């Protein structure tokens, strides 16, 4: 059976060049970068090269990059570390209702410790406006954290305009760029970013590694205490093989950014067009143009997302959904509800995310499969026959 992976926003396969880069660091160059001997120093040199490589992809200086265990740690560190280190300025954070749980749950944890959090509304496309942020700013606002690209609906925020508002009021600006990094050319200075979370496994690197960009001069406390690694800011023996893989993946992503974006955008538009032309009662979610180059998010009315995913999986197609049944909670995704979708529509959501290894045949096969699967589920649905009844 054909296998079609359309869940690149969940994770990506590690590219062969990346694996190749990592392998010596398991067996030969395995030294602890803190050791004084040759093994250690070799690892240390590689580590600093990796840091310089990753820094370059963000147009940043190497000493602003701190390696972490991934996006969630970076998000936790940015929020908890900044709030803890800037208590004299205040205790207010502004974020949005559509953030990843690594941000939302960290904010909830901070609230329990006395922080005040504003969760901004978004419009029907998932956009936050600079005007709305302006209105939410307070004298005691320490940090504004707004994701660069939403992981579910793919909407891209006007980061530059938003960071300007934060700075105007003396607040720091953090962005969770886990979905944007490797899909958009991010110049941290041009965008006015003070802290930025990124992850390796979304850009064809290994899992369990990421980074936090911290602009020079930003006051932040440690999240992980221990040894003197990462300039005493993030303890723990460096995951050298992971970091080398991450740096290689970042290097490849930035060397091929233009062709990557062109490939994804073409297939994304083709997939969306195919769906909209072949299936009725479909709603496209997210912004029509300001979006992730590989993200298609649609709701199929009258059917439920998990049933759709299982049916697609039976045809070898891997996607994801924001339905309640797949979220592990009783409500559909907080993102779909935040853009104003009613529960019954949100239950029928499907996210398909395209990547470097997706082909035109994959897209055509998926459109054909969707036509069949959606129809089959609708024929079983009591909601669909009410509609058909109404049309008779």
């Amino acid at each position, binding site marked *: 059976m054909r296998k079609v992976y359309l869940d690149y926003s969940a994770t990506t396969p590690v590219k062969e060049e990346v694996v190749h880069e990592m392998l010596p660091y398991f067996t030969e160059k395995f030294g602890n970068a803190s050791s004084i001997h040759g093994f250690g120093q070799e690892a240390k040199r590689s580590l600093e090269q990796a840091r310089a490589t990753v820094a370059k992809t963000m147009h940043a200086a190497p000493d602003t990059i701190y390696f972490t265990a991934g996006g969630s740690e970076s998000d936790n560190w940015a929020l908890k570390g900044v709030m803890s280190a800037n208590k004299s300025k205040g205790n207010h954070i502004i974020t949005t209702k559509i953030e990843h749980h690594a941000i939302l749950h960290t904010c909830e944890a901070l609230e329990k410790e006395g922080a005040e959090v504003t969760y901004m509304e978004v419009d029907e496309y998932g956009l936050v406006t600079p005007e709305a942020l302006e209105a939410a700013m307070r004298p005691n606002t320490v940090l504004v954290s707004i994701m660069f690209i939403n992981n579910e609906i793919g909407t891209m925020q006007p980061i530059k305009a938003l960071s300007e508002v934060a700075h105007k009021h003396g607040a720091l600006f953090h962005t969770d760029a886990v979905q944007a990094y490797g899909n958009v050319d991010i110049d941290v200075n041009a965008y006015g970013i003070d802290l930025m979370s990124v992850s390796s496994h979304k850009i064809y690197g290994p899992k369990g590694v990421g980074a936090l960009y911290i602009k020079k001069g930003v006051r932040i406390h440690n999240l992980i205490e221990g040894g003197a690694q990462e300039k005493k800011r993030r303890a723990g023996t460096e995951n050298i093989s992971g970091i080398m893989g991450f740096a290689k993946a970042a290097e490849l992503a930035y060397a091929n950014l233009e062709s990557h974006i062109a490939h994804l955008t073409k297939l994304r538009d083709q997939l969306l067009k195919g769906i909209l032309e072949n299936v009725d009662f479909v709603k496209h979610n997210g912004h029509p143009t300001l979006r992730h180059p590989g993200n298609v998010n649609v709701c199929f009315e*009258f*059917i*439920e*997302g*998990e*049933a759709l995913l*299982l*049916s697609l999986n*039976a045809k070898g197609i891997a996607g994801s959904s924001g*339905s*309640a*049944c797949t979220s*592990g*909670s*009783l409500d*559909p995704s907080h993102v779909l509800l935040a853009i104003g979708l009613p*529960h*019954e529509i949100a*239950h029928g959501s499907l996210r398909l995310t395209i990547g470097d290894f997706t082909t035109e045949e994959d897209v055509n096969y998926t459109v054909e499969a969707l036509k069949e699967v959606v129809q089959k589920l609708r*024929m*079983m*649905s*009591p*909601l*669909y*026959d009410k509609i058909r009844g109404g049309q008779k």
Partner: protein
Amino acid sequence: MYTEIVMDHFMNPRNVGEIENADGIGEVGNVKCGDIMRIYIKVEDEKIIDIKFKTFGCGSAIAASSVATEIIMGLSIEEALKVTNKQVVDALGGLPPVKIHCSVLAEQALKAAIYDYATKNGKTYAGLEGFDPHDDHDHHDVVEIEF
């Protein structure tokens, strides 16, 4: 996450559709929660001679509807009213804890269909005592789990 039996009933559901001039129709659940189940029954001599379903919901909701119709087909009304959600779960080889409510929904949909039949025909059944088809029972009273 699902047993092979669940997947089989989901991929090849039995008795899907509707019965024209059904003797009883029951519908439970709501769109907000993401599952609605509708069951049609044809009754002859107090026996369910045909049963069909339509379901909006996840894989286990569809599988539970399907297996419930298999269990019920051919039973007398009195026997059908004794069918429990546990029988539905067992017939499926088990369901994940968060999906147990799908089997409850199947039991409730059947009861609602029999209630409809009983109301139309002026009949009463002991097994329907206390059953209110319009009661929006909280079938979603399940533990929230993290994946």
